[in-house]
């Protein structure tokens, strides 16, 4: 598409018409608030899921007193944390201490901008889609370092350093896997990636085109979320609670929230990048309604799309929650060893394989 009119942009910092253009842009607040509401409900559901699945694995009953089947347990926990006293360490750096959890939550929340729940159900169809997630998840270690440093506690500090080291170590295999996906699908936009997986139904998923990348992505995203088996920054035995030791009340709730938000965004990204997104994927079934069910316009089609995305995301959630309650924790040197000496060469090899297969197919 060739655009041949020269455009001269003016940065109207001194005139008032620029202000009105930005007021019209405020209409975007409605989809943003809707997404935030959905995410919050999603986090509550994940907390309940984690409790129920861990109870099933450990052969006990999960929450049962707060609401039917314990559904309101997460709200009860949140309310309790809201009403607790907000402790501040007396000689710690109060501003860093307060801002740290916010940075962790903000960086994870911004990543929800590019996740598509349906063809037009994405907040920002950026040309650099997945790369936005990679870039913004690189800001999270800053928040962890700030929290660890501001706590005036050498165990918190050590936990914060370890958490930041873990985060930056596993970013690289994650970025290389995402890069391989971008190469396979010829675009970095999440909508384009899902569209590229829609041709052959079930067999068109990137899971089959990039099996090594899928495994590396699973492991790296579990490590980025700081879930077990990569739990050392929050380890109860080694470091009390790592960088979260001195936190109480709503700031601790922010860390808790950031952890589950990160898990949800990782599982949604696994869905979008490897499991085909919103496509209902039974290929070549001769029943035309069933095959074209995701192309139906209107609210019904969109609902089906959202439902399919969430059902696929649930698979990764189930895997990660089960992993948390079955595998033992890794030590920090084993963890960094795995990240740098095992996953990084494998993801580089995956990238090499992908680029050579792209050359062959062209």
């Amino acid at each position: 598409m060739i655009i041949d009119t020269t455009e001269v942009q003016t940065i109207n910092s001194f005139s008032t018409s620029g202000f009105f253009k930005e007021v019209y842009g405020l209409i975007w607040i409605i989809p943003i608030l809707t997404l935030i509401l959905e995410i919050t409900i999603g986090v509550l559901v994940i907390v309940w899921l984690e409790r129920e699945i861990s109870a099933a694995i450990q052969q006990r009953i999960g929450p049962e007193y707060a609401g039917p089947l314990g559904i309101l347990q997460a709200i009860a926990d949140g309310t309790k944390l809201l009403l607790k006293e907000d402790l501040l360490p007396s000689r710690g750096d109060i501003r860093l201490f307060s801002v740290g959890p916010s940075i962790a939550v903000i960086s994870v929340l911004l990543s929800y901008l590019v996740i598509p729940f349906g063809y037009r159900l994405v907040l920002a169809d950026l040309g650099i889609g997945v790369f936005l997630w990679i870039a913004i998840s690189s800001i999270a270690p800053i928040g962890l370092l700030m929290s660890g440093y501001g706590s005036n506690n050498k165990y918190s500090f050590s936990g914060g350093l370890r958490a930041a080291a873990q985060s930056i170590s596993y970013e690289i295999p994650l970025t290389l896997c995402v890069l391989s996906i971008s190469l396979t699908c010829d675009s970095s936009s999440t909508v384009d990636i899902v569209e590229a997986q829609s041709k052959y139904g079930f067999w068109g998923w990137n899971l089959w085109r990039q099996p090594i990348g899928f495994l590396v992505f699973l492991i790296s995203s579990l490590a980025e979320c700081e879930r077990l088996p990569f739990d050392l920054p929050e380890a109860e035995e080694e470091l009390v609670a790592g960088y979260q030791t001195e936190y109480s009340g709503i700031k601790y709730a922010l860390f808790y929230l950031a952890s589950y938000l990160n898990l949800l965004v990782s599982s949604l990204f696994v869905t979008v990048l490897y499991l085909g997104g919103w496509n209902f994927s039974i290929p070549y079934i001769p029943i035309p309604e069933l095959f074209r069910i995701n192309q139906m316009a209107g609210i019904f089609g969109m609902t089906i799309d959202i439902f399919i995305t969430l059902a696929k995301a649930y698979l990764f959630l189930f895997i990660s929650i089960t992993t948390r309650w079955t595998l033992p924790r890794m030590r920090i040197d084993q963890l960094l060893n795995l990240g740098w000496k095992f996953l990084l060469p494998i993801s580089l090899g995956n990238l090499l394989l992908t680029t050579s297969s792209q050359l062959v197919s062209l």
Partner: protein
Amino acid sequence: MILSVLSSFALVSGLMVVRAKNPVHSVLFFILVFCNTSGLLILLGLDFFAMIFLVVYIGAIAVLFLFVVMMFNIQIAEIHEEVLRYLPVSGIIGLIFWWEMFFILDNETIPLLPTHRNTTSLRYMVYAEKVQSWTNLETLGNLLYTHYFVWFLVSSLILLVAMIGAIVLTMHRTTRVKRQDIFRKNALDSRRIIMKEDGRDLSRREAYIYNEYISFGSPRVSGFETSGGALECSLD
């Protein structure tokens, strides 16, 4: 409006990098400068470069700075320090930098200079839309890997040198350090590690008696006699 907000935050953060007393605060303001600059790049339409700023500058370089600053015992600067003694040299450097900026800015677009004529705002040409509307990434790849591939390879060699430098600085002296290999230790078999003085391995009976010595302190087999001299052990 966003431009003025981002620019002013960037300038103030840059000033605070120099003026903050706590070095950790200094690095955090440094991070803020990069965040604001990344926003300015987005305003210019360079979305990929904004993300690269976040990944490389904030995610790698600033985290590195934070690790260093937090782990060293850098004393917090004195409150009554003499700022004025830095003024001569820093003044000269600042003036040189300010003079160099005029090479980049076109005189007609700066609204406050007395040579300015018509408009009251900053203007710039959006060159990215005059040609085919590629994404930033495509444009960069099209240039970097074809016309300027030599610079790309040279920069990768520079990074390789930096990596090797880091490894050389932190590598252990592996010749003098004794380490254990747990798997090897578990695989040791007592029949093979103990050797008699004349170089023969232990027979099965002798190995059994040796095991009895170790486990119970004395052999329970009567009439024990070794035919050689002392036993030699080799554990490696």
